[in-house]
């Protein structure tokens, strides 16, 4: 597998594959993850056109400072095979897979991606996966899905389709998806991957967005999907780590370094073992802080 680097995932924004102007503009916002969409925002009559457009945009016009992905059509869609043929060749950072319900679905897609990577001379495993859980079955199987492939770097929970599958009513308070959010979050933690929260659908309700994002942050999510560019800065602010989190991350990394100096196989901090996911989370915390303009490497800046 290819070596994975720390990539921020505080905010993700979709740019529809039908609209060149959306794709051009999306580059200029502050989202960490930019996802060119071939799925829900593209009508059936434009699937072919969107595929060409997204391929060309990602290949020739992708932003250098974002984690760039392509959302392909669903696993049982007639469009998926051609989506994969185009999307892998565009060489995005990741593919976002919608409506995942079983681990075997991710494994199948991962194998299909690997075959294309091999054919075009890419290192197998170069392309990450972000999987969307959008149904009760996906929530029930979240743990297996999260561990289905080493390509998976994050799992997202999507509330709109989920509430439909639950026969629930979507509300701003979100009690109907509270269990699902936590189930996906727990699965992500168990698998050592990032957890991405649901969208907040009312783009005119800033107070509601703040409340919902604060909840997501407090629950433990690493980021949130935005439905509109105007939500990005608010969500980024909430996912900027606190000084306490930054100090702890620095201590984790110092302990890891000390362990390396002393050639220790296992490193302990405050009586607990530090494992690789903890080290990666510490690096992510510092990257989030630096992305927010905080100087985290100098002690004087933290006091």
């Amino acid at each position, binding site marked *: 597998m290819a070596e994975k680097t720390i990539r921020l995932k505080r905010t993700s924004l979709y740019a529809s594959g039908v*609209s*060149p*102007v959306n794709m*051009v503009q999306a580059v200029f916002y502050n989202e960490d993850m930019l996802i060119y969409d071939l799925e829900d925002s593209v009508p059936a009559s434009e699937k*072919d*056109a969107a595929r*060409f*457009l997204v*391929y*060309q*945009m990602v*290949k*020739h*016009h992708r932003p250098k400072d974002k984690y760039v992905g392509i959302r392909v059509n669903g696993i049982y869609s007639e469009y998926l095979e*051609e989506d994969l*043929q*185009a999307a892998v*060749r565009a060489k995005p950072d990741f593919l976002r897979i919608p409506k995942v319900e079983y681990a075997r679905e991710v494994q199948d897609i991962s194998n299909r991606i690997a075959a294309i990577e091999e*054919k*075009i001379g890419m290192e197998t495993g170069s392309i990450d996966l972000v999987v969307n859980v959008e149904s009760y079955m996906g929530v029930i199987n979240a743990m297996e899905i999260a561990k289905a492939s080493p390509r998976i770097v994050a799992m997202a929970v999507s509330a709109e389709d989920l509430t439909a599958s639950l026969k629930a009513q979507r509300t701003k308070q979100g009690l109907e998806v509270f269990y699902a959010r936590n189930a996906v979050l727990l699965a992500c933690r168990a698998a050592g991957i990032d957890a991405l929260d649901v969208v907040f659908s009312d783009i005119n309700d800033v107070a509601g967005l703040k409340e919902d994002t604060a909840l997501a942050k407090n629950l433990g999510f690493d980021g949130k999907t935005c439905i509109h560019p105007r939500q990005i800065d608010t969500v980024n602010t909430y996912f900027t780590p606190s000084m306490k989190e930054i100090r702890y991350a620095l201590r984790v990394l110092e302990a890891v370094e000390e362990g390396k100096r002393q050639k220790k196989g296992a490193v302990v901090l405050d009586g607990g073992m530090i494992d690789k996911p903890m080290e990666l989370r510490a690096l992510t915390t510092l990257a989030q802080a630096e992305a927010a303009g905080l100087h985290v490497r100098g002690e004087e800046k933290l006091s």
Partner: protein
Amino acid sequence: MEIKKPAVAGSLESSDCQITVEPNPGQGISVHLESDVKAMFGDSILETVHTVLKELSVPEAHVELRDRGALDCVIRARLQCAVCRAAETAYDWTKEDA
């Protein structure tokens, strides 16, 4: 690819272009370009059109291109799509591996 019928791809929205590809029997390649930036970028746009048609092995076609400030990669995408629709064939993505 043989152009079998007229086909359109793209739109007249900002940053896009609308491309129509039609059969042009015995006439080779002809291109009609409308663009507000034709004076500055017309030659570049036409070069892109001819390059893409050559890549897709299209020997004869009439192309109408209405540009609304599209990037070169958008023009390529719209023309590839219009040609595949006009030829009634799926794109062979292994062409991109060359």
